[in-house]
């Protein structure tokens, strides 16, 4: 059995496993529902997620420990993940194979050669990770926040940097010491310039990290499409915002395989770059055995990594597709413990200028992005984060934009966010009460449970609802509902409604009503005769049956005396009332009646409102709702509190 066959089986296996994890991520107990499936496993295997969150939070959350296994295997074997495990890689592999299978050997050999531009992915990695590093440096500089763990983590990272630079070739030593230097500069800047208002860390890796990317693309794009006719995965059609951007990136990356196979893996993938760095010292590596090589170059003809196996092979680019073993006519290619007979090239070979420029850009990027003040006074009140989300800066330190929360949310109310708070909010979760099938469900804590990085921390139901040992702190609030009295039917247009009050799931309800009687338009009538419960009018005709709904009343008033009777039916010139009015009062009032409507106008009790948005979802004013949830009062930020407590 050739190893390339095994590789294909493995790729298919992991891709199928990934698809299974996508399919079964709906809450529920039956076999193809979430039950106990470890649907985050690929995200947890991703060392870029682990490294990023270590840099920003100095902790490694729960299942992210799996990344250690990936790192260890990569250090031992090389970039096995890219060629054997990565579900995104498998897709690229497939599309590239389809697109290029009919081409000539010469063409394929040409397109699969090594290109200098493949080093771009290392810059991508740097640009995405440096903001997180900036945060670590700042943390170190801020003595008030120093904790032993943080120092240890930083020292460890510095130690790696120093060790690596000592051991590495001269080309790499410089950038590494530069990186350390930058960290120091950044730290001292933080110390002297009091930058903490602007400068902080951010986890940017999720934009291009292939694992979160493929999760959100499949879960939030293809699954809802594929499921739309069968409804096996979702109970109802799902909708997700930013579909266009998600699709552009995903499909764009796939189509580029037609230009160059594994385009994304070779030029863009920051995870591949990280693996390239980790796999530099792999014990086993692809290379030529000593022997008579006919220099045919065929080994490069189906090379997935573009790693130049015919010449001095670039180990950091090799994705272990092992196609060269098959294509070598001389049976010289192998996976050996010794270096290739035709030599090896240690990449990445980053230019100093490129390194400095990208690192600097990245370090400056977060402060620049945050100059808009969206994390402070200028926060967007329409941004409602899922229940259990950390305070915004901490949230952005953890969220990898994988979309698992939006996937698992039973009501589709969690949406991948647009660019509303600038670049940083793209694909992070935000509640959109209009898009979902309901608001945030009171008894659901799925988003926090599934979040692989605890950007949304796992809440127990007791904590979410403020029960048991959490009764002191009260329920988790994600915002507060505000009535827009200019759009609300009872408030603005004298129409009965209170759908919001009915649907409020909080008990006692967070929405109560103010009852009032309002005179209807042109509602002053003069009675021609009153007999029993029927009043006849002169003057312009009423619309027949209009006042029979049970909400309308006829009122008669004289001085301090007044009577109000519900209207049972009406014709063009008469009203039948529930009970008669006293004839004396009618006479005293000169026969003057007013038509009134009984209104119940909703009022929010901010003490009780948890911001779940069910009212907003149900509000019949379908466009811009007449009751809307706004972030004031959200539990995660004391600075957004609305009430004293």
């Amino acid at each position, binding site marked *: 059995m050739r190893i390339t066959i095994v590789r294909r089986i493995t790729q298919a296996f992991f891709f199928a496993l990934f698809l299974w994890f996508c399919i*079964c991520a709906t809450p*529920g*107990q039956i076999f193809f529902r979430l039950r106990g499936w470890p649907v985050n496993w690929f995200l947890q295997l991703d060392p870029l997620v682990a490294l990023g969150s270590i840099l920003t939070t100095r902790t490694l959350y729960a299942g992210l420990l799996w990344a250690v296994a990936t790192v260890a295997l990569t250090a031992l074997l090389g970039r096995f993940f890219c060629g054997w495990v990565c579900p995104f890689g498998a897709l690229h592999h497939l599309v590239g194979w389809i697109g290029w299978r009919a081409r000539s050997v010469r063409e394929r050999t040409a397109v699969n050669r090594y290109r200098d531009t493949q080093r771009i992915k290392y810059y991508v990695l740097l640009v995405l990770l440096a903001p997180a590093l900036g945060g670590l440096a700042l943390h170190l500089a801020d003595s008030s926040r120093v904790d032993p763990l943080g120092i240890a983590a930083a020292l460890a990272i510095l130690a790696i940097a120093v060790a690596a630079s000592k051991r590495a070739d001269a080309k790499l030593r410089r950038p590494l010491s530069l990186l350390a230097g930058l960290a120091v500069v950044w730290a001292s800047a933080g110390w002297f310039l009091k930058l903490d208002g602007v400068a902080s860390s951010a986890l940017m890796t999720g934009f291009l990290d292939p694992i979160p990317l493929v999760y959100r693309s499949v879960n939030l794009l293809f699954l809802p499409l594929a499921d739309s006719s069968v409804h096996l995965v979702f109970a109802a059609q799902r909708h997700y915002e930013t579909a266009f951007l998600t699709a552009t990136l995903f499909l764009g990356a796939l189509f580029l395989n037609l230009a160059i196979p594994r385009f994304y893996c070779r030029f863009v993938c920051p995870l591949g770059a990280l693996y390239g760095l980790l796999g530099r010292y792999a014990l086993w590596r692809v290379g030529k055995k000593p022997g008579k090589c006919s220099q045919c170059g065929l080994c490069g003809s189906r090379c997935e990594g573009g790693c130049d196996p015919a010449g001095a092979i670039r180990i950091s680019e090799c994705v272990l597709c092992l196609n060269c073993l098959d294509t070598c006519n001389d049976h010289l290619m192998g996976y050996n413990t010794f270096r290739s007979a035709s030599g090896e090239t240690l990449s990445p070979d980053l230019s100093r200028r490129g390194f400095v420029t990208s690192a600097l850009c990245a370090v400056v990027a977060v402060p620049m992005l945050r100059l808009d003040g969206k994390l402070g006074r200028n926060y967007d009140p329409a941004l409602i984060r899922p229940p259990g989300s950390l305070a915004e800066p901490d949230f952005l330190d953890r969220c990898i934009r994988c979309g698992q929360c939006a996937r698992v949310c039973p009501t589709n109310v969690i949406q991948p966010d647009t660019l509303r708070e600038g670049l940083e909010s793209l694909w992070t979760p935000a509640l959109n009460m209009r898009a979902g099938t309901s608001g945030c469900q009171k008894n659901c804590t799925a988003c926090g449970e599934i979040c692989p990085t605890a950007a949304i921390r796992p809440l*127990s139901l007791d904590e979410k609802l403020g029960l048991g040992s959490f009764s002191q702190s009260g329920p988790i609030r994600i915002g507060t509902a505000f009535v827009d009295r200019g759009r609300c039917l009872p408030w603005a247009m004298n129409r009965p409604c209170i759908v919001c009050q009915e649907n409020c799931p909080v008990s006692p309800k967070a929405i109560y009503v103010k009852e009032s009687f309002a005179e209807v338009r042109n509602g002053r009538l003069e009675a021609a005769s009153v007999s029993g419960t029927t009043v006849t009018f002169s003057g312009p005709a009423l619309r027949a049956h209009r006042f029979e709904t049970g909400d309308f009343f006829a009122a008669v008033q004289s001085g301090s005396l007044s009577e109000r009777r519900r209207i049972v039916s009406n014709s063009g010139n008469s009203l039948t009332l529930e009970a008669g009015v006293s004839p004396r009062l009618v006479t005293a009032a000169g026969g003057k009646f007013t038509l009134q409507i009984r209104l119940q106008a909703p009022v929010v009790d901010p003490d009780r409102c948890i911001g779940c948005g069910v009212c907003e979802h149900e509000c019949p004013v379908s466009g811009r709702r007449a009751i809307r949830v706004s972030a004031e009062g959200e539990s995660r930020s004391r600075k957004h509190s609305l009430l004293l407590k």
Partner: protein
Amino acid sequence: MRRAGAVETSIGVFILILLVTIAGGVYLYGAFSPNGPYRHRSILSSMGSSVPSYLPGDLAPFGREQTFDSQTLADQIDGKADFYLSSGFVKLTVNRFARKTDAKSWIEVSVYDMRNPADAFSVYSLQKRKGSRPLELDGDISAYRTEDAIFFTAGPKYFEIISSARGLMDDMTILAKNLSKEQPRSAELKTESFFPRESLDQSTISLHIEDVFSFSGLDHVYTAIYTDRGCRVTAFISRRKDPKEARDMAAAYGKFLLQNGGTAAGEISEAPGSKIFKVFDTYEVVMHQGRFFAGTHEVDKLESAKEVALQVYHKLSETVK
């Protein structure tokens, strides 16, 4: 085409075995671990919903979901509304599911949201239908069925599943299982599980909310009926706030018995603090253990009253430890 050598083949086989291991591991973990990697059970439910996330057979939702609050409850169930209202009723949700092929075969699921699990258990236990048979649902959920209906309680909810026609029982059972699985559980041990199992009729466990045994001070008492050597024995357990309250309750109830024609008739030596009363022709055992106030009630034979009381006492002693 290149031929693979022995080493290559064995590596390939090894990798394939590894894949099978991973698949097996994922399967075992996903299919059999109680919660998988998730900490709280609520993720496993579709939001503690009144509609299960998966409908069996060819059932489909039929008509709109109806909800009733305390104002409108009487519209749905006229006769028994007061009973629910006085037992901590919060909300009633009614859903109907019908066969896609036959709209006349429908199942109606009524979910009563009660104030707390005890209230839900109380309404469940106090209106048990004639001819009921016990039903096994998820875990230790209390459930029973009749010819054409299923009743159960989970957490603060009480469920009634009734059907329009015979022959829907299989689907109803699956529906009940799915629904019961998806209800959030409270970790707290249930008082009713402290009744010793031996010679107990499980279906007789009931919860009485107030004025229990016509004693106005006594509330929240679970009762269960045992058969001891042919004698019917009602045992009772009530969990109090703390040991002191349990002790006080035992003293107060003893006093109440004495005031109402009872006479002291010794104690059970193995159960410290217990007292036996003879009330007319029957015997009462009153005792306390930790937070629990317990005993047997209106038993014809003294020996049976003591025997069952002792069993209850031992069971409580185990849990108190």
